[in-house]
């Protein structure tokens, strides 16, 4: 079931177009930085971008920081929102359900396919970022400086970058689960995608309000930027572990809700 879903997803030109568009913004930023030599002032702009001019090996992280707040969630919401509702709209859902695999397994298969899409996308963004960073800027690939001013060996830097990539993938699980849940509620992929984006925008907006501080630890986007904590020395695990747990809870609850709704849903198309 999972293999079938993956093949279907990655054979679509639309999937690759989405990944291409995602990479466009970091490329534009890198070229502009290289041409003008104007890094954002420290503390301004996306994470790590101000440090890129001195060490291009940090550009994969800067690229992730650029796509993380908006572009990546949109891509995830589009793909996940399409997963069930798209089949319903195209009239193929009942043929899918005619297979003996069962509806619960179909849901899990759809979610895993979306997560593999996220992983591939993030890896491509990081790889393109690394190529850009090492060709357009002075790179110091042998070592790096942690946020705390200590020296990281090339191995440590690579290990922490891998952790950060993994963390960003997990951070997208909540978006995928929201879009998948909405996708089982409606026959319109657009509706499901916009529903998931509405949740994210509401969450991001509430995070800027002091009055919303009591509910902030439960908002799905609360710990997204915690991947920066992986580059402090010693690593600050507090927000990272909370972020992982929170995404796990959202995936568990929303997958259960999707199952509750979808397992007996009247499928007419």
């Amino acid at each position: 079931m999972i293999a079938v879903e993956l093949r279907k997803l990655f054979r679509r030109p639309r999937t690759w177009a989405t990944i291409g568009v995602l990479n466009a913004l970091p490329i534009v930023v890198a070229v502009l930085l290289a041409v003008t030599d104007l890094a954002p002032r420290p503390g301004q702009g996306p994470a790590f971008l101000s440090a890129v001019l001195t060490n291009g090996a940090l550009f994969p992280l800067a690229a992730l920081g650029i796509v993380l707040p908006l572009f990546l969630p949109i891509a995830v919401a589009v793909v996940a929102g399409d997963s069930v509702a798209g089949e319903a709209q195209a009239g193929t859902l009942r043929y899918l359900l005619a297979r003996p695999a069962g509806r619960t397994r179909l849901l899990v298969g759809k979610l895993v396919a979306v997560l593999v899409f996220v992983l591939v996308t993030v890896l491509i963004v990081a790889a393109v970022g690394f190529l850009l960073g090492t060709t357009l800027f002075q790179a110091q690939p042998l070592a790096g400086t942690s946020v705390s001013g200590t020296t990281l060996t090339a191995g440590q830097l690579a290990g922490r970058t891998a952790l950060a990539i993994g963390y960003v993938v997990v951070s997208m699980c909540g978006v995928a689960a929201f879009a998948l849940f909405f996708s089982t509620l409606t026959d319109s992929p657009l509706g499901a995608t916009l529903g998931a984006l509405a949740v994210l925008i509401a969450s991001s907006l509430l995070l800027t309000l002091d009055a919303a501080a009591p509910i902030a630890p439960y908002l799905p986007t609360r710990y997204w930027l915690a991947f920066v904590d992986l580059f402090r020395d010693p690593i600050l695990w507090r927000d990272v572990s909370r972020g992982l747990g929170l995404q796990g809870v959202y995936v568990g609850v929303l997958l259960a809700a999707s199952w509750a709704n979808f397992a007996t849903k009247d499928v007419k198309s």
Partner: protein
Amino acid sequence: MWPGGDPDGFRTVVRMAQGSGAARRWALVTGLVAVLVALPVVIGAWPAPDADRSAAELRAAALSSTDVDFSGYAESAGGLALPATDQLGSVADLFSSRTRMRVWWRGPADNRVDVLTPAGETDVHQDTDGRWTWDFEADRAVRDVSAGGLALPAAGDLLPTTLARRLLSEARPAELSRAGADRVAGRDALALRVVPADAAASVARVDVWVDAGSGLPLQVQVWGKGAGRPAVDTRFLDVALGDPGAAVTAFAPPADARVRAGSGDDVLDEAGRRLSSVSFPGTLAGLPRRTVAGAPPAVGLYGRGVTLLAVVPLPYGVAVDLSRAAAADPDAVRDQLGVRLTAGPLGILLAGDSGVPAYLLTGTVTTDALAQAARALPGLAAA
């Protein structure tokens, strides 16, 4: 075949069975969500055991806990909306916004305090000879070899441990009382309350939660008189006792960073040079004068504990700038003594007649006490 051969009835029953299945599934999901939502509430409401220890014992334990090694994560939230100025911008931020801090403590002369920002951090590494300040976003390391004394407030001063010791150090036994127990950073903490006795005090009370085991202050709240929320609330969210290791607190600047020697506190030095000296009275508003090492001699400091008052004679140019800035503040109150501002328990009075103020009075005292103090100053007694 369905009894009676009624196909419609059969379909109804099937639909009901499906419906009750869906209802059961939704009930399961709703129950799961309810348990998840209730968990933090239940954990937060779980009572903490109190211990039979007097307020004086707790104060002594807190003051002598400077040798307790620990590491932790703390957050402070300031409710003071201080006027923003160029030179004191970082100080105003400290008291008006949320600050996230990590600390590794191996004693007063060997510790490290990191102030975390979303995409960087500013770290202060203290050693026996001085301190390193590392600013990631500016890629800069600054070495200060100052011998202590007076300095502008820095984030490390807002750590519960440091702030509590400062506020408790001058409290009198009669001002102390116990205020129950609570759980802070997952540890049992005994609460200690300071209610300042001075009539001039604008601080209603200071609550300090002290770790029952080690004596470390874990949380501090400063409440202004009549305020609905604390003016300063700083607490640990994680604490681990034990030596964090010398490798964590030590610092060597990265090879490519800009390194420079610190120039001390420009604002304080400037103040010492430009202020004219005035003969201050021995007491103001019932508060005795005090001396603080490192403070410019032209500044009069009064009070004790959490009730403090500073009086600064203003040079003409500064006075004009300040009164213009104060006049732009919609909350400023103007009367025959000058212009008054309040930020939580902190009062500010620009005192002087004929439009240009001669003194800046500020501190954790009531506006009445500010006015009373201003009338006693040389040159203003007639006002």
